[in-house]
């Protein structure tokens, strides 16, 4: 299990856990469709993280990317 902030670009990972500091962030991540079981791909890491899930794309800062735990598919 790795934090999303540490995985390589282009690989597909499965989200296994969300550990945000605030309930508000958790709700926001879920609304973006980021939740355990979904598959994500990191597209870019600088200046912000850009990840894609299916046909959706989202930008995250490093702190948020550190709160998403993933496993290599």
């Amino acid at each position, binding site marked *: 299990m790795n934090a999303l902030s540490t995985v390589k670009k282009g690989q597909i990972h499965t989200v296994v856990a969300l550990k945000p500091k605030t309930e508000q*962030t958790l709700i926001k991540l879920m609304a973006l469709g980021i939740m355990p079981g979904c598959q994500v791909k990191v597209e870019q890491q*600088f200046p912000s993280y850009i990840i894609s899930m299916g046909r959706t794309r*989202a*930008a995250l800062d490093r*702190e948020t990317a550190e709160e998403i735990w993933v496993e290599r598919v």
Partner: protein
Amino acid sequence: MNSLVIYPEAIEQAIAQLEQWLQHPHPWQNYRLTPRSLALLLLQKDPQLWDACPPDFPQRLDIEHLILETQEKLSEPLSLAIAQTRQQQAQHLENQALLITDTPRLSFVEHLHRLTVNPLTGFPILLLILYYGVYKFVGEFGAGVLVDGIEGFFEEQINPVVDQITSQLIPWPILQDLIAHDYGIITLGIRYAVAIVLPVVATYFLMFSLLEDSGYLPRLSLMLDRLFKILGLSGRAVIPMVLGLGCDTMATMVTRTLTTQRERLIAAFLLSLAIPCAAQWGVILGLLAQKPAALLVWGGVIFAIFLGIGYLTARLLPGTSGGFYMEIPPLRLPKLRNVLIKTWVRMKWYFWEVLPLFIWASVLIWVGRLTGLFDAIIRLIEPIARALGLPQETAPIFLYGFFRRDYGAAGLFDIQQQGALTGNQLVVAAVVLTLFLPCVAQLQMLVKEQGLKNTIWMVVFIIPFAFFIGYVLHLSLTLLGVNF
């Protein structure tokens, strides 16, 4: 049960229990939701629903207890379990309905997306958009060409008529001044809202709606998030900051879209201190246009203060910046009709929001002049102006500049025309005017958004700070022997 989504057993049991309770009178009767939807919202601890529940509602404790009980039976947070079930169902539906025959090829839009977010190409694109969209279109065309045209029309066609009618209808000069002449409600307040704010805001909203509908704004935010983190802000605050370059009053109002109070406070403070509005930087650019080095010093000082003070505020204020997460929609070609309607609706809304503020400004000036308060303040500023190496004729500019944007900068322009100002004095005056509170309308908006206490703190800091920086700049230029 004919529901489309079936939740885990523990949640379904809780829903059934809640549905039963909700058959009796409850505080959410007027929500027009099915009992099942209400039950699900309650289980997700929807803040609006819970706020509407009076503490003495007999079943409140029962419901709270039920939620705790249900949570204990689940391994993940209740709201997550609900969201996950929905996601699975959506995925299931999609798999049934959608047949993917081909792997998507890299389209033009996808290439464009990559260009806008790749640091190597994204930052130049960002600068180009700000240069043409904000500087050229809003600054030079809106705040320059359009403002000059509409203001000229007011000064030649409307103001003389108003002055004449007022002098015929009202015999007392004091009351005449309230309506007409240099600072009247019609000749200043309404002229200001129509001739200065309206063209700036119209061009700004047009550009903004275009960027918004093209899907570029989230990309702007993600490109600048890291820079804004230094200032205790997040990428979301890019929007009010860029708006501030159009109109600080509008931008101060837009800070309410930021997620934490800390971020709203920092954004409102930086807007008041270091973001010049289009009316302001329009004239300053004109003043310093012949002296590129002086212009560079002005820009450098303001940008350094923006970063430096932002950094210090972020360190001094307790708390951390809110996390940044944002959906990135695909880039699209904006539909002109939508852009125009949106621009029109926003302009209308904004105009009615600021018109009273400008009318108030006229009344304040009227009271200030009538009571002699303004003269007293100007006499206080005169020694400060001299300490900054400025002629004392510049003192009224700082006071009136706060009420009439054009008076501040245009007054400077007049004095410069007479050849009474050196290049150094122009830079010092321009820096102080920029750091000074943007205008009286913005101050009123600040009170509305941040409350009186925070506003007073900001004002107490900003006014001496503006003069102090002017003093330091004057001293440095003199000591270094720089002459623009």
